[in-house]
């Protein structure tokens, strides 16, 4: 639905700063370290990963609260009808049932929108899943502003914070279709509660197929020396684009993909900032409680350094296309470039 809109802000930036810029000549216009030939939604990565996980392990079961199509769980349901549970529009009950299924050795994957996967059922997750250390995989689609036209009621920007505050909870926010699929397979083999966040828009597939996904291990995608950009989710792609734009201006940015918000790879963060001396975080989330918060906590405790946030600054979203929203709320490549320039002045 949003497939052809995502590059528009870049076009705007480029018409001002660089040569005219279109999707077709992008690779010629910017020397990107990562490119793509295909685009897909990250939720499809989840759906395909779940199907594969189900084939690999008969204990994998699926639950969905009346959003099978949106969550891309239809293929799993079709292949494993006896291992699929339609709960109707009753997310609290779904979380409890998932917790109960683990007692019989099942590995439940719950599917609904990120808003209904977290805020709506926080107490159920807290008591029946996190505190009880149940092996439930809370899989959350339509997270963040890129949900688009449905507006702020559904665009949750607080979920990473809520989930990372829960003891025992692992929190993962992959960046594209391939990484989401790999993450889905990885969490099926991980014992313990996990929150897996992904989204609705079609997005460049710029990481390798069949990649190995290591929970808690940050991925340094691009080496640099002047600044480190720590990005998560959809904004990893924006960071890749920003790095190329910065390079054209003679700024060397390191790009680190923090797909696991918790446990945070503090070693990778500290190693990088020890080299670059400053940091920018980029995420589709509130400043409060997000990846930026986790990184600044790490830096404040171990290696104080200037840092800027790219994220949502204490406001709700609104209706619009994903591209328009990322631009209006300051979450695209151009804003990462701006944040980098600001943090470099503070070094």
């Amino acid at each position, binding site marked *: 639905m949003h497939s052809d809109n995502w590059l528009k802000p870049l076009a705007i930036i480029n018409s001002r700063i660089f040569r005219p810029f279109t999707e077709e000549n992008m690779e010629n216009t910017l020397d990107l370290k990562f490119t793509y030939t295909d685009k897909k939604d990250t939720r499809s990565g989840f759906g395909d990963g779940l199907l594969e996980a189900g084939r690999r392990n008969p204990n994998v079961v699926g639950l969905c609260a009346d959003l099978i199509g949106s969550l891309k769980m239809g293929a799993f349901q079709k292949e494993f009808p006896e291992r699929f549970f339609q709960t109707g529009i009753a997310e*609290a009950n779904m979380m409890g049932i998932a*917790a109960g299924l683990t007692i*019989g050795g099942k590995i439940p994957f719950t599917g609904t929108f990120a808003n209904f996967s977290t805020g709506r059922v926080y107490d*159920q997750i807290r*008591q029946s899943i996190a505190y009880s250390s149940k092996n439930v995989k809370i899989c959350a689609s339509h997270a963040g502003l890129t949900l688009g036209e449905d507006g702020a009621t559904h665009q949750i920007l607080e979920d990473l914070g809520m989930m990372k505050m829960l003891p025992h909870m692992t929190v993962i926010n992959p960046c594209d279709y391939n990484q989401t699929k790999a993450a889905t397979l990885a969490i099926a083999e991980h014992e313990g509660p996990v929150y897996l966040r992904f989204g609705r828009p079609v997005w460049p597939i710029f990481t390798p197929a069949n990649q190995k996904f290591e929970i808690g291990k940050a991925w340094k995608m691009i080496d640099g020396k002047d600044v480190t950009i720590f990005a998560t989710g959809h904004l990893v792609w924006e960071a890749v684009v920003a790095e190329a734009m910065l390079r054209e201006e003679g700024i060397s940015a390191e790009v680190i993909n923090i797909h696991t918000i918790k446990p945070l790879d503090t070693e990778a963060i500290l190693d990088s900032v020890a080299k670059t001396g400053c940091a920018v975080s980029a995420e589709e989330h509130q400043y409060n409680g997000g990846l930026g918060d986790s990184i600044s906590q790490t830096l404040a405790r171990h290696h104080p350094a200037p840092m800027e946030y790219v994220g949502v600054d204490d406001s709700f979203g609104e209706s619009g296309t994903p591209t328009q929203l990322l631009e209006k709320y300051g979450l695209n490549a151009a804003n990462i470039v701006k944040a980098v320039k600001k943090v470099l002045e503070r070094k």
Partner: protein
Amino acid sequence: MEKQSIEQLQKIASQVRRDILRMVHAVQSGHPGASLGCTEFFVALYFSQLNHNPDFKMDGKGEDLFFLSNGHISPVWYSVLSRSGYFSPEEMNTFRKLNSRLQGHPATEEGLPGIRIASGSLGQGMSVAIGAAQAKKINGDDSTVYVLMGDGEQEEGQVWEAAMYAAHWKVDNLIATIDLNRQQIDGPTSEIMNLIDLRAKYEAFGWEVVDTLKGNSMSAVVEGLEKAKNMSRQGKPVLNLLHTEMGYGVDFMVGTHKWHGIAPNSEQLADALGQLAETIGDY
């Protein structure tokens, strides 16, 4: 575990009531009222109904499972678990104290045998029991899953999500019991939030309903549980409406919400223990 006679069960119940009062008194906190009211139910369940193994395994494969949704009545559960061999009765000395496995509300975090999920925040237990029951079905395990809820707890919306689901998906290896003592913290349920007719409500949701009218008569409780068991596995979840009196067994505690979450002082404890025979031996 071999089945006990009604007389033996009554003796155990008397000891369990002493345990409840002594635990709550020792820390001057906890919930004696509904613990006392549900004593017959817990004793009947653990000593005559459940096929269970005190050598605790979380997955409970091949065993009947019990979940306590209204976790605040932990004293009665802890007493019955220890008296049926899950852990030493001496451990009841640690109830609600620092570094204890006997948390104020039941939890798995400290690894107390017999507990499969944390509870206390109300409304969640039946959903969990449904999940455990469905896992048993997938595993080809024909054991039964039991859950106890409070009647005040029926005010939580999640209970009705679960009730709708269990009937729709024919979770007929599930027996839910509601402790119908008609009291909640702030007063009688008729004043706080009228439950009106729980039988009619659950029947309308597609459940089979058994009324255990004398929820503090051991023979009636056993009979009610057996009736519920016989009605299970016929396409519908089963509800056991257990009519109890809060505070049953202690004359000054019975039939009032006053003792929902209040501990007796030493004088009151002595008075209460004087009404309850020490049958197995105090911990």
